[in-house]
């Protein structure tokens, strides 16, 4: 269900905790063996009678640690989608210092670092710097840029301590979230201002993350309003390039923001938030210096990035069974990188939810987006036209029907969108969840999702190479965007099984088969003469056509096992196969290999969380990513470990080591060559957190 508060619509904190517990505590990709062994081992375990807690003193009760699993398991048990929840606890234990690294814990997510400030992140395949099939939201606000249909991960940042949870949905969310939620949705939900009262200071530093810190204060402003304001800074060192030289990708970023939550009346609440940032980053990229040049050359560039946003969300309860949400946001960014690009985006959303009719839970909504971009570009890369304004209109409706209350749920819905390039688009889905008991849920879904074109598909122009043409006229092999490119389509078939085998063990299994149509290929086109920039030169164009189709299938397993009161293990595993095929007229020689080869067949995770004594905690995570074949990249395992010490009630010190297995390793090569790869280095940092 679509809400600002996330996919899982909960009527109570209970269910929210439950949802977290069931998913977030699951582990990632490890081994089916473990799963099978655990399943086999379970029936032999003796049943325990619950202790009579009323016999204990209140002091005892207050000292008891609870598991958050409760009886109310409906919300997750009726969610017919592959959901993984990263809780605040997972975030704090991970030792990760940025949002992309957090996503490594989700089976089925592919998270790679190209260089210090550039990422390749996707779900269920098609990974790349310009991955465009994953939708990322922060408090319901799309982080998507119309420039390439993806996310600028470097500037997607906020104090990680303020995140309530991250819901990651693998698979299509198009029928609720619209185009681009093709292979997944990442929904970052921040805490309400009432949950972050008081001061917070975080400072840390190490050999790669040289200095970082957050200063935050929150409290009441008047009787009905809570607020927090924060500032966050990070400074990351350059990483070595493949030859071991300084890769020129160091960067630093300063950000300030706020959130207020106000209760306007017993029926109305208003949330306002905003932030503003400035960053300067090393951009190891490429340039095509002149019309007579023959090859791209590497350049080191230093770019300023800046931006900010403002968002308001007004919730109004019409009755206990009916409420409306109005959401307005404005976002502006400037990136002084190769394109020298800027963009303003205005989003308006209205949504109405009602559950007044028996067994029905209906949400419908309307949305509008206005996005205006400007760019300068150069011979190596530019947009034509350089400035563009686009509008998007959409409407959606989704009905969740409890066919048998608490047992069998059916959700049907669709979105109808109109976009600048391809016009109207309808994306329906149907989902069924069956919970024969509160501890078991089986679900299945069929959905249609589309990726609509973005500026990079329709307006990009980039020079790939040059050669002396006929009569000595310079000829340039140039990629030219195709304004007539079509939507890329997907029909996805998914099924899953979630179970809580007693409180200590939960297992989430998902299998999918995706059928992709009209995927983009690069096709040669008719050469033409061009006079500017001088001298006159021949353009040998390559452009996008939709001449590829294919299938992917895979499984994902996430397990969470609380082995003892103090030890939790979370293994996970994902397997994926991608097969792509060209339609006859295609002359493309790269797209199939790249689509099939840029994602690993196998990936696995294992996270271990140990609550030690005297306020110490020890966390270790291992992430395995199988080899990639195009661009070729060997498999690697990332090992992180951290020791944290809560030496006072509200103060903690942590020591974290990351990428410990190898001195340095490469993770991903950007096939567009727009960002050069550097090597991820073994690193360590110390962090002090103090809350007052």
């Amino acid at each position, binding site marked *: 269900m679509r809400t600002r508060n996330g996919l899982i619509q909960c009527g109570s904190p209970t269910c929210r905790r439950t949802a977290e517990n069931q998913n977030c505590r699951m582990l990632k990709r490890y081994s089916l063996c473990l799963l099978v*062994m655990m399943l086999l081992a379970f029936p032999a375990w003796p049943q325990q009678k619950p202790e009579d807690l009323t016999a204990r003193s209140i002091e005892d009760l207050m000292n008891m640690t609870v598991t958050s699993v409760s009886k109310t398991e409906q919300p997750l048990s009726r969610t017919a989608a592959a959901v993984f929840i990263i809780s*605040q606890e997972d975030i704090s234990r991970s030792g990760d210092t940025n949002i992309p690294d957090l996503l490594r814990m989700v089976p089925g997510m592919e998270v790679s670092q190209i260089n210090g400030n550039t990422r390749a992140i996707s779900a269920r395949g098609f990974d790349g710097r310009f991955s465009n099939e994953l939708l990322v939201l922060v408090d319901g606000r799309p982080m998507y840029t119309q420039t390439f249909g993806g996310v600028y991960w470097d500037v997607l940042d906020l104090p990680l*301590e303020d995140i309530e949870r991250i819901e990651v949905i693998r698979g299509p969310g198009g029928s609720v979230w619209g185009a681009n939620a093709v292979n997944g949705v990442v929904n970052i939900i921040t805490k309400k201002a009432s949950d972050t009262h008081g001061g917070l200071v975080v400072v840390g530093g190490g050999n790669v993350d040289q200095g970082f810190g957050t200063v935050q204060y929150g409290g009441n402003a008047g009787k009905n309003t809570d607020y927090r304001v924060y500032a966050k800074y990070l400074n990351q060192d350059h990483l070595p390039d493949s030859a071991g030289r300084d890769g020129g990708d160091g960067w630093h970023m300063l950000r300030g923001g706020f959130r207020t939550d106000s209760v306007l009346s017993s029926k109305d609440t208003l949330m306002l938030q905003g932030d503003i940032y400035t960053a300067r980053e090393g951009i190891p990229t490429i340039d095509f210096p002149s019309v007579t040049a023959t090859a791209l050359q590497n350049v080191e560039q230093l770019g300023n990035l800046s931006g900010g946003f403002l968002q308001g969300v007004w919730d109004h309860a019409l009755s206990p069974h009916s409420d409306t949400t109005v959401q307005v946001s404005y976002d502006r960014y400037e990136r002084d990188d190769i394109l020298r690009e800027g963009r303003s985006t205005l989003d308006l959303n209205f949504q109405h939810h009602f559950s007044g009719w028996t067994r029905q839970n209906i949400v419908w909504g309307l949305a509008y987006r206005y996005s205006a971009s400007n760019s300068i570009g150069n011979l190596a890369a530019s947009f034509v036209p350089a400035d563009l304004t686009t509008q998007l209109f959409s409407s959606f409706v989704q009905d969740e029907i409890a066919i048998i209350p608490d047992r069998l749920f059916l959700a049907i819905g669709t979105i109808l969108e109109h976009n600048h390039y391809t016009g109207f688009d309808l994306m329906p889905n149907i989902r069924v969840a069956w919970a024969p008991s509160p501890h078991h849920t089986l679900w299945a879904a069929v959905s249609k999702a589309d990726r609509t074109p973005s500026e990079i598909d329709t307006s990009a122009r980039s020079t790939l190479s040059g050669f002396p043409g006929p009569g000595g006229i310079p000829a340039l092999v140039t990629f030219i965007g195709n304004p007539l490119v079509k939507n890329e389509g997907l029909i996805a078939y998914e099924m899953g099984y979630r179970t809580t085998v007693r*409180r200590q063990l939960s297992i989430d299994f998902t299998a999918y088969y995706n059928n992709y149509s009209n995927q983009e290929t690069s096709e040669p086109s008719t050469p033409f003469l061009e006079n500017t920039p001088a001298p006159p030169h021949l353009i040998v164009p390559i452009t996008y056509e939709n001449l590829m189709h294919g299938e992917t299938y895979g499984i994902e397993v996430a397990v969470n096992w609380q*082995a003892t009161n103090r030890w939790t293990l979370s293994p996970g595993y994902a397997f994926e196969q991608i097969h792509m095929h060209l339609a006859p007229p295609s002359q493309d020689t790269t797209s199939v290999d790249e689509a099939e080869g840029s994602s690993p067949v196998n990936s696995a995770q294992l996270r271990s969380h140990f609550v030690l004594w005297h306020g110490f905690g020890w966390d270790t995570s291992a992430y395995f990513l199988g080899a990639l074949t195009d661009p070729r990249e060997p498999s690697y395992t990332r090992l992180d470990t951290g020791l944290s010490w809560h030496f006072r009630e509200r103060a*903690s010190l942590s020591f974290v080591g990351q990428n410990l297995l190898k001195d340095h390793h490469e993770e991903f090569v950007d096939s567009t060559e727009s960002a050069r790869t550097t090597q991820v280095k073994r690193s360590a940092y110390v962090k002090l957190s103090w809350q007052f």
Partner: protein
Amino acid sequence: MDPLNGTRQSLWRLRASTSTHGDERARERIIAVVLVAISMFSVPPGARAQNNPPSDYQLKAAFLFNFAKFIDWPGSSFASPQSPFAICVLGQDPFGSVLDDTLRGKTVGGRSIVVRRLKNKAEGQRCQMVFVCSSESGHLAEIIRSLQVENVLLVAESTGFAASGGTIELTLEDNHVRFAINTDAADRSGLTVSSKLLALAKIVHDQGHSKGG
């Protein structure tokens, strides 16, 4: 409406004083060592030999019992000397059968305890204690207005409930149950809270001023 009422606390807050008994600690240590030592591919039966942590609502149910025990209701709040002590649940019940299981056969002040699920807030006037579920967090003000005058103890999980005039706020902080008592509200309902309970509670007053912890 955000259904999550801030029961989750910031992570760096202390993972609570882990005051388990010495032998229990030793046992846990042994178990931990054993578990580390063995391969992760097999599950030792011994791993299950220890106590499982209770669920949040098992623990909260025990707290409700303790509230009944350590708060005095005036005799006039019961229909007769034989009337049971009624603990009622208003809204979408998060306990399942846990509350009934926990309180089955228990007595307080010589009265047996009954658990009732309310259809509407008006029915709460016949209860000694009303647990207000998070599903009602949009109507807390009305509930407080209509029930607090009647010698009814209102307990809710919503953050800010005590500060806004409710009597007891029962929350989870970093996987531990904590409670806040609004002593002004207790006075208004004519309830006497024992000093033992007050010593363990966060004390809240109507204006939201707080002391202790």
